């Protein structure tokens, strides 16, 4: 079967400089983009439309990344920038305003990621100063700040939360109790390392250090869980490699890397599909490729989404046709 992947919207952001991130909200109704022009824009993209909802100005340098919070906390967006700031924006009565501005770092803020909603409104931020901050909304305009100093020597480039489902501990967990969620996230940095962090008694501790990359780790992505007792993380690097790390060990101590592919140029970004079985990879070669694990555990490229911008690619999905 040839499956058709269709372009449902092409949004002209009118950003005045290069775009660095684009992300839709939980329901897929709104698109947030950020750019070197120092702005963050929000578009209503329902029904193929593209209505500019907000043009958020507040950053004083290029904005690298945006992140939508879970809608149960309202319409909240975080952005991080070269200007060393993280800004949390919130929509109230139809207008977007700064909800919080965090300036606790000494260098560019490279990555922001909201934790699973089960943990409350919690944001992890990685900075070029090597530290990672965890900002927890405690109500009444208050944010609790926890900082992991020197998380990555030279700089932290990416953070990504583990799903609240803790698959590894499921089997052991006494049934009937509220699962004892452990807050965990993964980070990648200029020390070529992927690091796993775990909260214990309110303190963040380094849990694992995963070594495989030979250059700066540019992005990490913890795969969403569908309830299986396996954890999966993707990491990509300046070295052009993308690794898929899996852990089937319930204690979470044994992580095995598998090379997805070695690209010619830097790989900047990895993103998991909602069911955690497809990985989107993008990088310096200006291409977006989709990868899927076959039943026998091999990763295969199933499409090259952007040979040129706007190109619609049709995808032959062998996996699907087998069904």
């Amino acid at each position, binding site marked *: 079967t040839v499956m058709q992947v269709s372009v449902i919207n092409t949004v002209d952001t009118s950003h005045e400089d290069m775009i660095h991130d684009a992300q839709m909200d939980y329901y897929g109704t709104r698109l947030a983009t950020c750019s070197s022009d120092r702005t963050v824009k929000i578009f209503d993209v329902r029904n193929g439309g593209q209505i500019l909802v907000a043009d958020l100005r507040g950053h004083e340098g290029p904005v690298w990344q945006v992140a939508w919070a879970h809608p149960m906390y309202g319409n909240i967006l975080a952005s991080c920038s070269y200007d060393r700031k993280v800004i949390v924006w919130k929509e109230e009565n139809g207008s977007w305003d700064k909800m919080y501005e965090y300036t606790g770092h000494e260098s560019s803020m490279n990555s922001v990621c909201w934790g699973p909603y089960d943990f409350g409104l919690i944001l992890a931020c990685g900075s070029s100063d090597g530290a990672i901050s965890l900002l927890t909304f405690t109500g009444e305009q208050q944010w609790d700040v926890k900082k992991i100093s020197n998380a990555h020597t030279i700089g932290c480039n990416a953070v990504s939360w583990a799903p609240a489902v803790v698959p590894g501990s499921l089997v052991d967990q006494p*049934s009937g109790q509220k699962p004892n969620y452990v807050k965990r996230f993964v980070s990648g940095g200029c020390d070529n390392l992927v690091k796993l962090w775990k909260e214990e008694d309110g303190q963040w501790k380094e849990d694992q250090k995963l070594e495989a990359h030979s250059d700066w780790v540019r992005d990490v992505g913890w795969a969403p869980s569908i*309830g299986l007792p396996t954890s999966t993380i993707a990491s990509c690097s300046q070295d052009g490699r993308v690794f898929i790390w899996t852990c089937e060990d319930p204690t979470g101590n044994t992580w095995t890397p598998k090379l997805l592919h070695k690209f010619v140029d830097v790989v900047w970004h990895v993103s998991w599909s909602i069911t955690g079985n497809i990985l989107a990879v993008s990088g310096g070669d200006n291409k*977006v490729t989709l990868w899927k694990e076959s*039943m026998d555990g091999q990763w295969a490229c199933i499409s090259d989404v952007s040979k040129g911008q706007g190109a619609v690619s049709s995808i032959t*999905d062998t996996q699907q046709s087998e069904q």
Partner: protein
Amino acid sequence: MAARWSSENVVVEFRDAQATAMSVDCLGLHAVLSGRRFLYVVNLENPSEAPRKISRQSKWDVGTVQWNPHRAQSRVFAASSNQRVDLYTWKDGFGEVHASLQGHTRVISDLDWSWFEAEYLVSSSVDTYIYIWDTRDPRKPLVALSAVAGASQVKWNRKNQNVLASSHDGDVRIWDRRKPNTAVEYVAAHLSKIHGLDWHPDNEYILATSSQDNSVRFWDYRQPRKCLNILSCQVPVWKARYTPFSHGLVTVMVPQLRRENSLLLWSTLDLNSPVHAFVGHDDVVLEFQWRPQKEGSKDCQLVTWSRDQTLRIWRVDPQLQKLCANDTVEELLEGVALSMEPERTQSSQDLEPQQSTAPLAEDLHDPEQAALGSSGAPQTLQQEFSLVNLQIRNVNVEMDALNRSCVVSAHLGSHQVRLVVKFPAHYPNNAVPTFQFVSPTSIPSAMRTKIQKILTDTSLQKVKRNQNCLEPCVRQLMSCLESDMTQEDGPPASPYVLSNPVTPALPAFPRVTNTYGSYQDANIPFPRTSGARFCGTGCLVYFTRPNTMHRSVPASEPTPRSLSALSAYHSGVLTPMKMRTESQSTLRLYSGSPTRSDKDTVSISSFYYKERKPPMSALRRWSVQTIHDYPKSRRFKTKREGSDSSNRPIKLAGKVIIQEISCLLPVHRALGESYILNVSDIQDTCQKNAAAALVVGRRDVAKVWALASAATSQDLGPDPDPDIDTPWARHPFGRHLLETLLDHYSQMSDVQTLAMLCSVFRAQGPPDAPCGQQLPRSALLPHHSRYPSFTSSSLTSGSCSSTSDSVPVTPWNTATGRDSEHGGPWGESSPDDYRYGNQAYSDPREREREQHDMNKRLLDPTHVLQFDDFKKCYGEILHRWGLKEKRADVLKFTSCPPEPHKGIEFGVFCCHCRSQARGTQCEVCRRLTFQCAVCHVAVRGASNFCLSCSHGGHTSHMMDWFSRHDQCPAGCGCHCLQQSTY
């Protein structure tokens, strides 16, 4: 470096103005914006009020507009339009042309009102003439200066009423209006076009020029071959103007990127980095002027007009002003350079005699300035010695405060210097120390003299302001020695330039890098210019670098890893481009707006160069783009006409594409909508779901539903009696088959099928009692209660009913309550223990039945939590699809509700010892905590109490009491029934 970005305090948009020029009147009340169809007069006191309009009939844009700077003529402004100058009078909210000056034969490039004679206006033109008009007689110019070359700028000297300067390509000419035939001085200022010219506000001889050659240069026109100082920028400089406060300079660059529209404020004393950036304009800044200060106001206000059609007013507070005048070593260079002026040039003698023989440096520092500069009281010599920072390489300073002297020893290469500095008694109160070289100083005597003079001047600068001078002198000494060293190698060059080495090239982000660029910023990763994210449920959002942007390095070379690595790519790529675009921009100089060339960029995008397509294709590409464009980019469409297509801005931001990729996912929204979960008719549910799966083309899932239908058929239903036969679940096609299926769909990540199967098979199991109701004993199955404990206590304490045996201490949160009681033993036991039941059953038959209950279930009860997670994850996806009811349907089948209800837990204070207790028995005094207000007996069982007065007792007693009374039985007077609800 100060980073104050919030100084902008007024932003007003004039969407339709399309103004090309702007001017602020001398009272600071109005700004005039000149559009093609109207001139708009903005009330600066209240800029947001609608501007008054003066309509004009011309097919030409206004080139320059200038208010008369004299109070007497404050209502008059001049506007040039092609070859003509129109003089407007603005009165009582209305404006009209009262005179026109016609004389130029080609387009007028600049206008300037005299600072001395209110009626005198000078105009420059491409027609090579510069006309001085007495506006009282508009018929012909008063004076015509013949320049042979077309002029781009003309400016009156601010101190000398006869002197003017004009710019012609890269040259500056100084005119004495009494000698119209020839310029009195030529300054070959720049190698390429001069865009801006500004006289020093206080010094008659000094002017600043800004040029296409990426620099601002400072000149004393008496030394036309020596540039006083250079401000190197990496981009062409459109305008550089002195500020009304001392030592400030504001520049506007010709933007290389649409983003880089900041105005930069510099201190002329330290050109290494800007003092401040005025950030906010979204497009090219077309004009900026200082609004005259109100009396008593210490703030200065900068009024700017940009192609983004906004007028902004920026407050420059005294602190920021002071930053321009801050004391740095570099400050001396200006003074040194000026005072080293060897002999006056011939030409300047032709000008009006001035008392300019005094050291220029003195002119530069007015008394006010001196007051500003001296921060803190002058120090004694002893203090100076103890605080001085002389951690300078190759230098050793021995200080002797007692004898008021010190010895500076330095060696640099082959040179050796030993300098004795003696401080007079009054130092530093306007008393200069003496400098004397002693042996073994090895530098030539000419150089000694030179250095001695520099040091004396340097110290003079300082002591005049009662400031210490040792440290600046030592640093100056070293810099002189160093520059001399370099001179020895190369051709002799101007010491001024050397001592202030042509500023370290402005980094890629002139503004940002200067502010933030620290060692911490050295490893900022190279920004992503493409990216893809899965969003929502079935979308892929991605963006890539636009097709028009190409990498400036061969594809074989990898993208740099850090932002700072970028500068390496600059120089090589950009140079050839600069040459090419230069000629193009000159054409547009006279339109009154900065050139926007799409020349190669100075930013992160500089790694990529923009494609230069042949005009035709470029044209086509552009026309396509404009359709999607916001009106903004069309505003100046007219201006773009006729200009080279390569001058059009090229989009740096590509489009963001949203792709529907649901077909790649194992879950289907259509199925989410059509799947049903009907507990009362499982067979029907399976059949309908099979049909639904077929509709979306999931034949595999349809088959699974058929199997599910078969497996749940009534004839396979397990017999309640364990002795009759083995339950179907134990059959290979029973639980085993189901497990195989779950395994398969797990590998496919098909959480939809997984969750639905788990729900259906749970529903198919023995009849469930809804959670939260009192359970019959037979319902105490693991699949229902999440609680593995089979002890009878779970029955008695584990209900969610509203009355319990130990009110008010029963935890209402049943989950936590049970955890504390039974979590322990289970935590230590393995699933096997659980499965085979290690608890002591009094009746073996009961145990057997429990076993049977387990066995007959198709879903392995030990994996209940995992099945719950399938449902939870699927529920999350349904939620994203907006199918909340379907989500609720699925979550009903989880063994534990998704969010355990957190109720209110009542605590009591023991009625005997007042300590806080969490049960019927006080842990401190071991007595029962709560007494009934009616019978005064401790309450063990059900109780009620008033939330207001906290009295209460046995439920039956309370019911009884309140059926007859309103007030509290304790006699506290509380109307419990009204205060709280039992």
